Every structure is written in C-alpha cells, then in structure tokens.
C-alpha cells in the first residue's frame, strides 16, 4: 500500500536558495505540514531571522515579519502581547539565537511568552560564510576558528535546549533532528506539539533542530548528515527537556 506526497499549501512554489542538502528545507516543510494539518494558516505570523533563513518568508504562504539579527523573540513578544489570538513562531539559527540573541530568547522563555521557537542548530554561522557559533563543536574548524574550536579559549558549545529548560517558568522544550527520515517524523510531531501548546495558550514552546550546513562544514550532503549524527548527536542529545504539567 503506497503513500502519496505533495507540497503543503503553507509552502510556496518558490524554489529555496538553500544549498544542496541543506536541511533548512526539510524544517520549512515540516512547519508547513503542521500548519496545514492544524488549519491555522490564516492566524499565522512567522518571524524570519537574519541568517540563511532570512528569506524564509519567500517559501511560506502566510504573514511574515523579518527580524533583526537575534531579536525575533522580542518581535514575537510584541505581537503576542498585543494580539494573543495570532499564532506566532520564530525561526532562528544558532548564531542568531544563541549568540547575539541570547538575552532575548532567555527572557522570552522566562516570561513564558506564548509563541513557538524553531531553533536550527547547524553548529556554524551559515549565511556569513561559516564563522564559529556558540554551538560549534570542540575542535571543529570554522572560518574564525581555523585551528578548530579551542574550548580552553572560548568554552564549550552551548546546549541551548538544556539551558532554557533550566528556567523555572513552565514551558515545552525539546531537541530533535532532521538528518534521517525516522528523525524527521519525530521532529514533525514535536513541532505539532509545540504549536498545540501555543494554540491552547499553555506556555512557551521551543524546538531545537540539529541540522546540517554541508557548505560551511566543507562536506557533501551525505557526509554532512553522517557528521551530524556521529559528532553532534552524542553531545546534543535528542528528546524532550521539559514539558509543562
């Protein structure tokens, strides 16, 4: 018994500018599928980061705002406070969210803002050409850590999901990945769960997605998927870090 498959309605026809094998595309699709299934396209406001996903708004078919680098959570807060009925998500990379945007994400999560964050952790700054991110793995070479990330000099990679989960305010915090079909199915469930919590006005929801950046890792898409699995997953453990009771 075969299955059918088609582009979700929340996704536009525009081909993405992402590199071959970049999993940004997979994550976009999952979000769109969840929105279709929940039938909430008309309530949606997405917030694009500054990063490779800056043009994300070209690939979705609902309202979108473009944030400044790192500030998407503050914009989402602005929207939800004045329009709690809208469904809002921020889509942020690890430079955007974990470096320049650390203050905004922690405070939005701690205030329990009722929006959803999709956090794309690809261990590097993609758009600007592969500089080191707070999530860059120990000894990983980047254009600003040519000898590899020296943890004695710049510390360990930040486990954002765990960090945010350690706050006292109730929230849904989970880490997923999209490097293999089986993970993709789980990741979609998590995104659905996050949107459901938001729709119910229950709590802040945060889905970290371990992703790939073949281009800046200097790997083929297949090598990149392998590297993510063997190097990132053992450090960035998958699963729910916190669920509201």
């Amino acid at each position: 018994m075969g299955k059918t498959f088609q582009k979700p309605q929340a996704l536009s026809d525009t081909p993405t500018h992402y590199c071959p094998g970049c999993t940004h595309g997979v994550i976009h699709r999952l979000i769109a599928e969840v929105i279709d299934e929940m039938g909430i396209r008309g309530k949606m406001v997405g917030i694009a980061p500054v990063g490779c996903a800056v043009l994300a708004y070209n690939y979705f078919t609902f309202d979108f705002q473009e944030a400044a680098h790192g500030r998407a959570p503050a914009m989402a807060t602005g929207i939800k406070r004045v329009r709690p009925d809208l469904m809002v998500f921020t889509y942020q990379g690890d430079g955007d969210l974990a470096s320049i945007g650390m203050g905004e994400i922690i405070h939005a999560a701690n205030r329990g803002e009722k929006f959803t964050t999709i956090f794309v952790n690809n261990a590097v700054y993609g758009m600007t050409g592969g500089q080191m991110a707070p999530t860059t793995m120990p000894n990983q070479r980047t254009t600003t850590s040519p000898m590899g990330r020296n943890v004695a000099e710049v510390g360990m990679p930040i486990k954002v999901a765990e960090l945010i989960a350690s706050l006292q305010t109730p929230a849904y915090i989970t880490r997923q990945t999209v490097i293999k079909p089986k993970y993709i199915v789980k990741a979609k469930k998590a995104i659905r769960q996050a949107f459901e919590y938001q729709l119910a006005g229950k709590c802040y929801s945060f889905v970290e997605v371990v992703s790939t950046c073949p281009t800046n890792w200097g790997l083929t898409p297949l090598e990149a998927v392998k590297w993510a699995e063997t190097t990132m997953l053992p450090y960035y453990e998958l699963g729910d870090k916190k669920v509201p009771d």
Partner: protein
Amino acid sequence: MQHEVMFAGFGGQGILLSAKLLAHAGMEQGYEVGWVPSYGPEMRGGTAYCTVVIADRPIGSPIIRNPKHLVAMNRPSLEKFAPVVKPGGVILINKSLISIGSNRSDVDEIAVSVNEIAQEAGSIRSANIVALAAFAARSGIVDLEILRRCIQEEFEAKPKLIPINMKAFDEGVKAARIS
C-alpha cells in the same frame, strides 16, 4: 591603456581565483590593477562573476558595466554578459557547458572545451586555469610567463597541485593557439 575582463560562471567553478591570478600577473607586470567580485549571501548554483581591471594609469571607477573582455564558464553567464562586451574584445566560451555562441560579429570569440581539457590535464577542478590560460593567450594583455609564475606561486601551499595546473595552463594556451 585599460583592459576590463569579466569572469563569469557557476559558483564553485573557480571564477574568483582565475580573475585574481590575472590581476596578480598584471600587478607583477607593473600595471595598476583592480579585482572586484560579486558578493552576496550564500546562494549556491547562482551565477558568480568577477571583474578585473588592468591599466597603465590609476584606475578610477572599478565598477564596470561594459567590460572589454568576457570569460564565460557557463551558459547563463554568456547569455547575461555577451551583449554588454565592448566591440573588439575577446569572448572566451567554455564549449564543454555552452552549446551556443555569443552571436556577436564585432568581437573575437573563442570556444574551448575547458572541462575536457582539464580532465585530461588531471582534474576537472583546474578548468578555471585552462580558461584563464586560453584567454590570456588570445587576448595577450599579460605576459604568459609572468602569469604562469603567479599560478605556481598560488599553489605553493599545495605542491602536488602544481603539475596538474601547469599542464592545464599549457593546454589552455595551446587550445587558444589552435582554435
């Protein structure tokens, strides 16, 4: 005198490097030179291009809309830039990927199977050197010997690449002569 050369192709075809090598040679020869890339956010598969200006007097505007010459590594870039090349310039076409011509009668068009030649020379990745060599030989705007040395210098760090690229260079020059 002032020469402007536009190098264009897919990202990843080594456009920026061949342009840089030409500029470097120009500088070594005592000319004023400028190298102006097209830069943008990471977008693979787009057309990358780069202009090199070589002149015997200080270079005013480094931004060139109508280059004197064009090195077109793929079809989109030939279609995009061939029309703006100044009359009398050289247009080098990478025959391996481009089936058409520039249909310009007022330019010196030369088509070279850059990829195949590079393959034979030892690696498809030296296609940009083949094209550079062929263009340099045909246009004669820099001394080939100096250019050859600049290429050697460029690969100093990776010595095992030098023979391949030297071969690619010589084949490129040959191709320009015969075609």
